[in-house]
């Protein structure tokens, strides 16, 4: 190994890593899409207090929040085929990527469901009643009134989740996926310039996170454009929120009319 850092290697590796951004982003995007759907589905039983499903979703969330992601990757890679074998489904020819995406989707799904649950609780009950009063069904009120506002409220938390998800994909190499981190480990086998390779890798993750952060921030601003931009109005809104929170209590979707 060389005595000092050779910047030219950092550059070289940086550019040789670029093609692997695709596979990393593929994991991020697919797992977040599926994870959002899973998170939504898992949040519903708890929001609507559906007896047995509510417990199940709690267990699911605790498990995926309470165990290391790396272990989850292995459990799903080795365990899922066995489980599916019981149902006479053979997945031995399935690409590894499918298992990786499944694991990341289930992992982020647990966090997303918690974010959605908290955010739905922050949308005031009065607007839902206003929806019913103009004749909406429970489903319409949820979709048109609660969800858009809940997503806006959850955006900062979801943003953190997305960035975390990007960084977590670096674990996928342990199942042999040649994403950014996997690639970065193979590049210096000849030169032995591992430090330079990891430096280029860190730089690349940082740039990706930075871009994502900016995009998410703009999205958040857009989603919250209905809450006035100027400081005075914003604090008025906060005060109003606090006041209403006391008066009408938290949103309780189990009441009359919810989700028919």
């Amino acid at each position, binding site marked *: 190994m060389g005595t000092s850092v050779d910047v030219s290697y950092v550059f070289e590796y940086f550019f040789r890593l670029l093609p692997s951004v695709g596979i990393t982003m593929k994991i991020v995007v697919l797992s977040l899409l599926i994870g959002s759907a899973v998170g939504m589905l898992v949040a519903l039983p708890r929001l609507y207090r559906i007896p047995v499903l509510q417990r199940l979703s709690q267990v699911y969330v605790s498990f995926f929040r309470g165990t290391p992601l790396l272990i989850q990757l292995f459990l799903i890679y080795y365990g899922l085929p066995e489980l599916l074998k019981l149902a006479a489904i053979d997945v031995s020819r399935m690409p590894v990527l499918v298992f990786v995406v499944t694991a990341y989707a289930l992992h982020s799904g647990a966090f997303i469901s918690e974010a959605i649950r908290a955010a739905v609780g922050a949308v005031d009950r009065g607007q839902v009643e206003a929806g019913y*009063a103009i*004749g909406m069904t429970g489903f319409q009120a949820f979709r*048109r009134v609660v969800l858009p506002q809940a997503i806006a409220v959850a955006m900062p938390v979801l943003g953190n989740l997305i960035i975390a998800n990007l960084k977590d994909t670096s674990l996928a190499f342990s199942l042999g996926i040649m994403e950014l981190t996997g690639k970065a480990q193979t590049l210096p086998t000849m030169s032995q310039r591992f430090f330079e390779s990891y430096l280029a890798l860190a730089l690349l993750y940082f740039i990706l996170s930075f871009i994502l952060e900016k995009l998410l921030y703009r999205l958040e601003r857009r989603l919250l454009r*209905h809450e006035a931009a100027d400081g005075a109005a914003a604090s008025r809104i906060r005060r109003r929120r606090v006041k209403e929170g006391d*008066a009408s209590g938290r949103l309780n979707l189990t009441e009359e009319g919810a989700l028919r």
Partner: protein
Amino acid sequence: MIALKEIRKSFGRHEVLKGIDLEVEKGEVVAILGPSGSGKTALLRCISYLERPGSGRMQIGDVAVDCSHPSKKDIHRLRGRSAMVFQQYHLFRHKTALQNVMEGLVVVQNVPKEEARLRSVELLGKVGLGAKLDAYPSQLSGGQQQRVGIARALALDPDVILFDEPTSALDPELVGEVLAVIRKIAREGITMIIVTHEMAFAQEVASRIVFMDDGAVIEEGPASEFFRSPREERTRQFLRRMTPEAVYNI
């Protein structure tokens, strides 16, 4: 037009509506008065079916429901016949004034978007907000928000509009503009039930007053008679507390 028969409602063991009978003719403006906790809000919430009455019969327009065992379809149809203006406005905060008014037309009544837009613009004009179509609730004063709330209720062309203390969350200087709008639509012959603590306004705008106490209707009558010569002792007590002499002695 609207007929309530023996409407009862309990929260746990506490009966807050003890068999309410009420009939409202088309075009009538009825003001409901009564001390705090007498069940005025509970009654309006039952009429709009935001709360389920325990028993009784209810008819609004051509929809009649037996409240002991209503079907989901009944409830949905009944809700479609009334509209509500809330004390706290409850506008959809992620939608502009125009979108708030259009929402019911487009989503519930399936009116084509362009038609809904035209009607909503007209209604916002009527409540004096023609220049605020694209403002979000957070950019509007309380009085303006409540006027959007009124336009949203009007848009649905309901058989009755229910007002629950529409001005009591407002700063005093904003009360007038909202009352003016209610006065205006009252003159257009829209059926309304208004819960209010504004005695002078009730006397002026309502054709009939209903006085409630402790979950029951104690007394009702034409507005002029009600204030001049209340029959029940409880009504007299209430009016003494609520009104300056000048109004009481008209």
